[in-house]
């Protein structure tokens, strides 16, 4: 513990350097802006700005890119509360009560509690990160290929289990993600696989064009021809500081939301979206007057907002301690670490303590900046939201195209983004969820290498996954998760989506 605090002090020493403070500020401001704008998310923004960070030192670059991740969570809630349109997928739940509060003249309190809840949860998750990441990294030194394989399988099954529609479809998308992720040269024999003679595919399909297509452009395509009336909350926003009664109602939900978000965020693949729904449902169940939910209950804003922020902190733990990305956003950060010449995994904390502790300290500073800056900047975000969607959609497409192109300077990536935008649109229409596809796409190559190494190590025996206690625990958990729907009619994710 004392060692962690000493290291944290060292981290603050790095994060408080003027250059790092500047990039932290840029990151959180950009994050808030993209969080406010519906259609363009932190993943697309990180991909877009990544090439611009190549000339920076890695610590400043990662500080800025992480700032985008958690800054977007603050921005997303503004759009949800004022417009009833989630700025981010992870702010959907905030619309339910946040917008109702705004309609009742309590937009200020909703925005205020959402900012304070985000800050408290952000702080909590940073301390969780400080305590857990080094411990987990030490523990992960015992991990061999079977453990990594079993952990990734567990992540994929949990994502499928938490899918809000058909679990079979979610598992299908995970398999499709593995297939797409493994396209390119074979990691062991260097045989080209499904590249159809195209040199551009030898390194595989990039995550950036896939994400730009599936999320950014597909969203615009879905809204083509649909008249999107943006009724921005026009009244002057006042009373940003929640009153005593608001705090009394919110402190419990913020605590529970923070805990739930952080621990679910730890699981590979869960991200920030599903925990938010869970926290809302939990608060509704615990409430003595559940009928208030959906009609402007402040608990319905406080808990999900705490939850999505804590979850983002949670997703950094598998990334920094195991080298396993749990969302598309952290996958691009993983790519960034590798571009900067760092090796993500259990040794990252030991080999690059300046990066690890510097980034963690910057997250705390960034959260503080967001709390101080976010509320006064709300009038500016409101003005941004008044830009008609017809213009906004063109800019979203343009930014997605630049983001897809700029990482590799390849027009093939633009073709890929266009193809995936159509796939993303059809997936929306046929109700296939993109999250398992993206996670499996990212984990596919790691999963394949771990599987093949395990089989080589065990001389072809699949029992290796059950003979080693850690991997056996992960596999048994995965089997339980897969089998659970056979014994219960109500699956967690499905139950929640129907209820709320």
């Amino acid at each position, binding site marked *: 513990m004392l060692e962690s605090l000493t290291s944290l002090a060292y981290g603050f020493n790095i994060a408080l350097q003027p250059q790092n403070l500047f990039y932290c500020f840029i990151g959180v401001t950009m994050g808030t802006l993209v969080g406010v704008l519906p259609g363009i998310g932190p993943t697309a923004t990180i991909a877009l*700005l990544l*090439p*611009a960070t190549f*000339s920076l030192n890695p610590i400043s670059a990662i500080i800025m890119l992480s700032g985008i991740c958690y800054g977007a969570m603050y921005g997303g809630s503004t759009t949800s509360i004022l417009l009833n349109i989630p700025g981010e997928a992870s702010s959907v739940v905030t619309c339910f009560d946040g917008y109702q509060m705004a309609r009742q003249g309590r937009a200020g309190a909703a925005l205020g509690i959402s900012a304070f809840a985000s800050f408290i949860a952000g702080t909590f998750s940073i301390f969780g990160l400080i305590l857990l990441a080094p411990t987990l990294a030490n523990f992960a030194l015992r991990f061999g290929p079977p453990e990594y394989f079993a952990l990734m399988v567990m992540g994929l099954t949990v994502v499928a289990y938490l899918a809000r*529609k*058909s679990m*079979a*479809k979610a598992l*299908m998308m995970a*398999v*499709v993600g*593995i*297939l797409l992720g*493994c396209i390119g040269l*074979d990691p*062991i*024999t260097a*045989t080209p*696989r*499904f590249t159809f003679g195209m040199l551009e595919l030898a390194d595989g399909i990039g995550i950036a064009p896939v994400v730009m297509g599936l999320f950014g*452009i597909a969203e*615009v*395509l*879905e809204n*083509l*021809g649909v008249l999107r009336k943006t009724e921005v909350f026009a009244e002057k926003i006042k009373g940003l500081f929640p009153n005593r009664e608001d705090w009394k109602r919110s402190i419990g939900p913020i605590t529970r939301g923070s805990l739930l978000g952080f621990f679910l965020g730890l699981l590979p693949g869960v991200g920030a979206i599903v925990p938010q729904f869970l926290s809302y449902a939990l608060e509704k169940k615990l409430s003595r007057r559940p009928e208030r939910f959906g009609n402007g209950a402040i608990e319905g804003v406080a808990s999900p907002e705490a939850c999505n922020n804590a979850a983002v902190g949670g997703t950094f733990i598998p990334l920094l301690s195991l080298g396993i990305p749990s969302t598309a956003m952290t996958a691009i950060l993983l790519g960034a670490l590798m571009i900067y010449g760092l090796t993500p995994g259990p040794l990252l904390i030991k080999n690059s303590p300046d990066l690890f502790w510097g980034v963690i300290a910057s997250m705390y500073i960034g959260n503080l900046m967001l709390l101080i800056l976010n509320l006064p900047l709300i009038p500016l975000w409101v003005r941004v939201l008044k830009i008609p969607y*017809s*213009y906004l*959609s*063109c*800019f979203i*497409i*343009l930014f997605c*195209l*630049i983001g897809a*192109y*700029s990482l590799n*300077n390849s*027009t*093939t990536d*633009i*073709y890929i*983004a*266009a193809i995936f*935008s*159509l796939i993303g*649109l059809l997936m*929306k*229409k*046929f*109700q296939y969820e993109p999250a398992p596809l993206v996670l499996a796409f990212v984990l*596919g190559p790691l*999963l*394949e290498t771990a*599987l*093949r190494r395990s*089989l*080589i190590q065990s001389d*072809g025996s*699949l029992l290796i996954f059950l003979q080693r206690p850690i991997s056996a625990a992960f596999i048994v958990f995965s089997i339980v998760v897969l089998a659970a729907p056979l014994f219960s009619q109500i699956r967690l994710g499905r139950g929640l989506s129907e209820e709320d």
Partner: protein
Amino acid sequence: MKRIKTIAAGAGALFWVAAGLLASYGATRLGLGSVTEPGAGFIFFWSGVILVFLSLIVFAESIRSPADTAREMGEMNWAKIALVLLSLLLYAFFLERLGFILTTFVLVTFLLGCIEDINWFRSLGVASAAALASYAIFELWLKIRLPKGFFGF
């Protein structure tokens, strides 16, 4: 309408059956190796097999309850979607030939004028500003290399 939905959802599932079969077939040509030493096609083969199995489950689900498996398709503006997709493909084709500024100007003009039905005068103005501003931000400020084309910009 229910019948159309069933057909659409069923066709979607069957598409993935075909994709799974193709992946498995392609994998056999890459070489599956053995369990002791998996080959380049090993993961593709087994993923393909699992995909076929799951697609058949989804196919059965789509017949049982079509309402859960596909949303309304009629409300989409497919003509506009096709035009946008075509414009993106053309953008990729011309980007390195004509350069970033010119191609972006044409794309944004097209998206605003033809797709969003904004008047041409305004579309041309916004497109010029968007092309120049994005060039200034990404190429000049952020030093992201954007293609120049044979006009040199």
